[in-house]
């Protein structure tokens, strides 16, 4: 394929001297958002140049999908985007057969996005049969279970481009990638989405957001924010390099977790006004004790508006 760094043209030939890992990008049932998210990666060209790309659905690549579906070559890194549907055919060939062929020979398999990791949003298309590559929600089940030691899941709806960038660069450098029990890289998924949120102080002092469309207040109490229960680095490695959902007043929907999508996403589930879910690893008793204390203090700075444009404009 031919790529560009705005003005310079680099032709990629597979020379015998520099054998690059061969990368293949396959798709199950997908909305393509992981592919589009990945295009936002700042150093995309430098990264792609480290691979020989056999096929990518939206980049002009060495081989056509028809050729890929003949299954007479192998790849080193297999990326699978989308929910796995055992009945899905592409080019009239069962995706299961194509996937199994390449997965068997690949050194690394990446389940890209929550659909490929756990079934995700499109699992609901045919909930009885659709799964991720090695998980059906959080149960071990899927077409590549026998190859699970090679599978890295990058959950998220969609993935953050730098999560895939990190994984591919680690693979290029031959470095081991430590993963959690859901096969997600620890370095990307041991943080919670809550970490680094600009509303953290409101969470600490239990100041609820008075509604949507405000800089002030925490979205955990009323607006359904799942950030304290969600493994992801959304507020550590910012989206599109500029922001995150919670910074912009949208609750975290927990899209990196196996139970995504949950329901009633814009409101916090409560039992008699008590949050049904509390931050990961914190007992409800400790959490409620702390809330009881924090709620008794009235902190003027956290109660008013940070900036009043009516006065300043």
């Amino acid at each position: 394929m031919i790529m560009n760094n705005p003005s310079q043209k680099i032709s990629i030939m597979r020379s015998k001297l520099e054998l690059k890992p061969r990368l293949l990008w396959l798709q199950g049932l997908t909305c393509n958002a992981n592919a589009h998210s990945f295009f936002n990666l700042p150093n995309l060209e430098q990264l792609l140049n480290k691979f020989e790309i056999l096929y990518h659905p939206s980049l002009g690549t060495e081989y056509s999908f028809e050729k890929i579906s003949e299954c007479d070559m192998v790849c080193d890194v297999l990326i699978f985007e989308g929910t796995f549907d055992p009945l899905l055919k592409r080019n009239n060939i069962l995706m299961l057969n194509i996937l199994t062929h390449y997965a068997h020979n690949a050194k690394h398999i990446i389940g890209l996005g929550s659909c490929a990791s756990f079934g995700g949003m499109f699992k609901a298309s045919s909930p009885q049969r659709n799964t991720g590559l090695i998980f059906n929600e959080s149960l071990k089940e899927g077409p590549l279970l026998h190859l699970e030691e090679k599978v890295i899941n990058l959950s998220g709806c969609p993935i953050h481009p730098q999560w895939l960038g990190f994984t591919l660069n680690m693979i290029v450098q031959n470095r081991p990638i430590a993963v959690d029990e859901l096969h997600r890289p620890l370095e990307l998924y041991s943080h919670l989405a809550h970490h680094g949120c600009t509303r953290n102080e409101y969470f600490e002092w239990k100041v609820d957001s008075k509604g949507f469309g405000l800089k002030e207040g925490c979205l955990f109490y009323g607006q359904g924010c799942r950030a304290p229960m969600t493994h992801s680095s959304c507020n550590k490695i910012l989206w599109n390099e500029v922001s995150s959902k919670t910074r912009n007043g949208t609750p975290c929907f927990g899209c990196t977790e196996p139970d995504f999508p949950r329901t009633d996403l814009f409101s916090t589930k409560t039992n008699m006004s008590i949050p049904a879910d509390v931050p990961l690893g914190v007992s409800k008793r400790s959490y409620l004790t702390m809330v009881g204390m924090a709620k008794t203090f009235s902190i003027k700075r956290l109660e008013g508006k940070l900036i009043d444009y009516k006065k300043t404009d």
Partner: protein
Amino acid sequence: MITKKLIDQIEGEASVYFDLKDEKVDYASIAFPHFIGIENILEGKSVLDALVITPRVCGICGHAHLMACVRAIESAYKNANLPVTLSKKAEDIREFTLILEIIQNHFKWLYMTIIPQISKLSGSYQDQHPLKGAFAASLATKALAIFSGQWPHASYMIPGGITCDPTHVERLQALSHVEELITFFEKECAGIDIDSLLSFRSCKEIDALQSDIGDLEKNLALSKMHLKGFSHDNFLVLGKHDFSTQAKLKQMRVSNVDTRYIELDDAYSPDEKSYAKNATYNGMFYEVGPLSRLISSNYPLIKNMHRRFKDSTYTRVMARVFEIAVLLKQARTLVENLTLDEASFFAPSKIENLSSTGIGVVEAPRGSLIHKVIIQEGVIKKYEIITPTQWNLGSSPKNRLSPSQQAMQGQSVDDALFIFRSFDVCSVCTTH
């Protein structure tokens, strides 16, 4: 004899079946073989969940789905005589982010689909820079995400406004990304500043440009695309925005539109199971998208192109490229003039009390997008999505061809495949 072609390097995957006579297309049918079923997934859920689920119909135009969804819910409120107030700030920010999504789409289509294909077809071997498309798109989505939190798959528009509450710091950051993108477009893509480009009056002026767009124009002409790919010359713009005018144009006769006349029926695909549907207006096919939007506005260049080359593939492709300039200018104006002293959000009455029906119409990258919803006590009873590709890429029997089927008629297979892609196909939207 029927020849099958699998189409990739579009959004998703499609098959086109050509029935050839003397090596020319006598009839082409289109199949979209993969089905998601988002509408079924939505039934029984809280209607606000649709703001999270419907953007996930499509990885490239999810923002347009979000806006169609929020407009559908807001229209349901109004139909139930419950007021919904939107501040100008909220409306302007929604418009700004929608426009930037269209811009990122057009850049990717230009550099990842159209230039590589025309390069092959014309034999000119025009330089291919697919990642230029990704780079420009990433600048657009950066400006967008300042307000939406992220792209793709944001859910920051909610009935009554938006969730963000930006300061001038964010506004200026967005402005600087837009300015950077304009500079990129002028230097790396158009070879001329956008104001001059927007004031062009004839195709010759484009032809003279030493740039990617100039090369594209020359290669389209070299491939005789100004004489190929004619469709019905019927255009439809349903979405209400500052950058386009709602209109129905039948051989340039303009009339008003009413969404009540829109119909959906199953696509005709004799050679493969297709999950697509055809969208028609009063029983007729219309082309939607950038060409329709620009024809219904008043740009001398587009008027000139259409007068000379009608709705040929040349006109269709150049209109989409030209729309990048139109929208970049609009985006800059919006963010320059954005005022922040209004509320971002006015809470409408409780969603649990809402039983009503609503319709949301927006202009998405590929044309008019419609969401319809029936709500009972805040829960979705029925949801229906009509996407632009269902208008342009419909598949019907020979006596009633869709815009793209008509455009491929009488062409060689290679030309027909290029013409097909000139509509900017989105299969994931088609078979949501």
